[in-house]
Every structure is written in structure tokens, then in C-alpha cells.
């Protein structure tokens, strides 16, 4: 069939053809998302969960420069976390998002210190596409629905810090993994989605920063329990960890910080590795004009 022939043929309607669907390799790809923890306008990385506030930070550079680098490497999205979480930090973050959005034409998520719909609005206006809320959603679950009603569910990401507290039991923690909430991680994910969250980021506290791999069991449980995409975060040390959480863990995306910031792997390396292991990803494409 020549170029354009399909277009001219009115019989080629958009009604799905079951046969072509079975043989199609085209599908929604799994996303690779670098995460930038921003403290006072700089990207930092704690060695393990919660250590950031305790001075265990390593400074890894300017957020906008890093964002542009990951954009060039073909990152599918980018997440910025304001770990200052103060009024001053918010102002700095707005500047970071504005400058990033002028250079990087990709989805940007902002989290940290978002406590009200007005905070969400300020971040979206500065160029963010999604807002990630964590402890403020636990303190005020209505914030999820208020945000979803105002900006749409696709805008509202609920981030969950989960820790295995007993066999077969994962509890939601806040304050950098120090404070238990009594909430069951799966039940909270379900409630967040019921209230309007369009995506769940699951951060496994046991695994975060240790590079021992994602927690596949809880990732899979939550992914199977909710009807929205689940982003796995925390624990990526090797590329095989990412393959595992996307395949066995049934995550829709992986979020990672350290392995990118310290130059161990580029986003492109990760995607080639995933592709070689049968995970559908978006590889670099060339535009001719």
C-alpha cells in the first residue's frame, strides 16, 4: 500500500481491526522518569530515605541544567520535588519550573510543600503539568478531590511512602519515613484514586536509596488494585531492577534519581536495556526537518 492510500480509502475506517491489533507492536510505552530533589534551588540527593533533612545531602547540580540533559537523553517525563517545602522554597521552585518549561517540551510534575489548591494553581501556571501530593493528601484527603475537580484527575498524582511493617503488610509513612500513619498502603492507594488521583507514585521506603531494588510485591499489588498508572520509585540500583519492577511489578513507569545524577547510567542506556528485555519503551527518534 502506497503512502496516502489508506487515507483516501473511505473503507479504512477507524473501527478497530481485531487481527491487526493482535499483530501490532505499537502500544503505550513504559516511562522512564528522572526525579530531581530540589533544595534551595539545587538538586540534592540523600543517601537514604529521610536523611536529606539530617544533612546527608549530596549536591548534584543545577536543576534546569540537569533537566535539559535528561530531556536530551529522551526522558519521558521529569519530576521535581521541593524538599525545602517552605514558602521560600516554593518561590525558588516556581522559578525552576518556569525556566525548565521554556526549554523542555515534556511533562513536568512538581511535588513537595503543596498544601492547598492555590499552591497547585501556582505550579501549574508556572509550567507544571501534574502536581504530586503526599503527606498533605493524608492530612487532608479532600485536597485530592478539590485538585481533581479544579484541574482534572490527570493533574493529580498521589505519592505514597510505604514500608513493610509485618509479613504481607505495608504501612504508609510520612515525614521522610519516620512517622507511621496507620494507613494500609493498598487501601490508601485505592482511596486516593476514588477521590480523584490520576496516578500513584509508590515509593518503597525500605528500598529507597539503598539500591537493592524496588519492592516488587507491593508495587504489583497496588498496580493491580487501582485503575490508574503506578510509578515505581525507590531502590533502583541496577538496570535489571527496572526491568523487574516494570515486568513482574507491573509498574507503568519507573522513577529514579541517583543512578542518573551520578552519571552511572543515562536515560538512553536505561531504555536500550529495557528494550533488549522486551519492555516497550520510546527510543530516540529523528525528525528530518
Amino acid at each position, binding site marked *: 500500500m502506497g503512502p496516502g492510500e489508506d487515507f483516501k480509502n473511505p473503507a479504512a475506517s*477507524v473501527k478497530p481491526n481485531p487481527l491487526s491489533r493482535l499483530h501490532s507492536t505499537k502500544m503505550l*510505552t513504559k516511562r522512564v522518569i528522572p526525579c530531581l530533589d530540589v533544595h534551595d534551588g539545587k538538586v540534592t540527593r540523600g543517601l537514604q530515605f529521610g536523611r536529606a533533612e539530617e544533612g546527608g545531602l549530596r549536591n548534584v547540580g543545577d536543576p534546569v541544567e540537569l533537566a535539559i540533559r535528561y530531556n536530551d537523553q529522551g526522558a519521558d517525563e521529569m519530576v521535581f520535588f521541593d524538599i525545602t517545602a517552605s514558602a521560600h522554597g516554593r518561590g525558588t521552585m516556581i522559578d525552576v519550573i518556569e525556566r525548565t518549561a521554556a526549554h523542555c*517540551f515534556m511533562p513536568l510534575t512538581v511535588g513537595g510543600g503543596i498544601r492547598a489548591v492555590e499552591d497547585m494553581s501556582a505550579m501549574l501556571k508556572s509550567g507544571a*503539568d501534574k502536581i504530586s501530593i503526599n503527606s498533605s493528601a493524608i492530612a487532608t484527603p479532600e485536597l485530592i478531590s478539590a485538585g481533581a475537580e479544579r484541574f482534572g484527575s490527570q493533574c493529580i498524582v498521589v505519592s505514597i511512602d510505604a514500608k513493610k511493617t509485618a509479613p504481607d503488610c505495608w504501612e504508609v509513612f510520612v515525614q521522610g519515613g519516620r512517622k507511621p500513619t496507620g494507613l494500609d498502603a493498598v487501601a490508601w492507594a485505592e482511596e486516593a484514586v476514588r477521590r480523584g488521583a490520576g496516578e500513584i507514585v509508590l515509593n518503597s521506603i525500605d528500598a529507597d536509596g539503598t539500591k537493592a531494588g524496588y519492592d516488587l510485591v507491593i508495587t504489583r499489588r497496588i498496580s493491580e488494585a487501582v485503575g490508574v498508572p503506578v510509578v515505581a520509585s525507590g531502590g533502583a540500583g541496577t538496570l535489571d531492577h527496572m526491568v523487574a519492577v516494570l515486568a513482574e511489578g507491573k509498574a507503568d513507569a519507573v522513577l529514579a534519581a541517583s543512578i542518573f545524577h551520578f552519571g552511572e547510567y543515562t536515560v538512553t542506556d536505561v531504555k536500550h536495556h529495557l528494550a533488549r528485555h522486551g519492555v516497550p519503551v520510546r527510543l530516540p527518534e529523528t*525528525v528530518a526537518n
Partner: protein
Amino acid sequence: MLALIDYGSGNIRSVTNALKREGADVELVSDPARLAAAEAIVLPGVGAFGDCVRGLQSRRLWEPLAEWLAADRPFLGICVGYQMLFEESEESPGVRGFGFFGGAVKRFTTPGLKVPQIGWNQLDLAAPAHSLWRGLPPHPHVYFVHSFFPDPSEGAIVTARSTYGETFAASAARGRAAGVQFHPEKSQAVGLAILRNFIASVPARALAGQG
């Protein structure tokens, strides 16, 4: 001047940034009188179909846009800005779209599928020669965020398809008007090329960027 319709629907900063980067003389337009100075229109749209239609109506932009479409002038609808070109949507029963394209907007219903579709999916260029696709690879990836998709009554208007559970019209065009379900302003090099191609399809004086 390229009029980017600003009617309180979501974040249009990235669309503005992307169009400017590609050399367009962009003006945010919420006053219908400003359309007289426009050579091209980009209609974005985030949120519910009904809210978007009402947002245009309450700003008295609905009729001028319908006339613009009927006059076959350069137009690009993005996401719900594309969906509104159809007759109606399952999202907001009873609310009429422009009806520029025949057919309705439907919700993804494949069992086990996560809705919304969020992420990068591939296009099948049903009309590879269409000006929007100039310079693109045969199956480019673009960024989608949506729970609903148009189901055109006429296959001939479809310029690209994509598959998420079912195959749907990711883009449609007739004359100088086109719409895309994905977000070109969020689709990196491929998306910027699509916007560049749209700008290039507009008569030259609109591009000059005098403003």
C-alpha cells in the same frame, strides 16, 4: 498573528512556549474581537468536554470559532480542543460540539486497561503526506493524557491512528483545520516538528513575529 485561545482551560503556558520557540507570533486571545487580527488559531483544551464548551460559550468565542472553521481557515485543536470538533462526547451528555467532524467522543472501555491513558504511544500515520507530519519518522511517539477519544463517522478525515486497547483516531483533518488528541507541546522533538509544520502551513505574514 497566531491566536492561542485562552478560555480558562488548564495550563497553556507550554503551548505558548512551544509555539514561540517555533517562531510563531503568538497572542493569547480571550476576546473574540482580537480574532480579526489572527491568521491562525490554536485551540487547546484540558478538562471536561462540557466545561470546555461552556468556557468558550461564556466568552462569546463559540460562534466566531464555528465561523472560522466553516471558512476553512488555519486551525489546530489539541486534546479537548480536538474533541470539540466532533458532534458530542460521552463525557458530557447533551452538550454539543462544533460538529465540524461527524462522530462522537467515547471513553476507553477495554477491560483491564488503565484510564486515563498517560504516556507515550505510537502513531500510525494514516495520511503520511499530510502537512502536519512532514519530516516525521513513520511511527513517531507522542505524549497522550486522556480518557476519551473521538470515533469519527467518516474514515477519510483520519490522519493518524493510535492503539490503546482499541484503535482510535489520534488525529483528523479537513481542509486547513486539524486536531490532535495528543499533546504536541509535550512531545519533545516530534511534537515541536508538528507545531512547526502547522505554523509553516499558515500564510507567511502570520509567522513574521513582528510582535
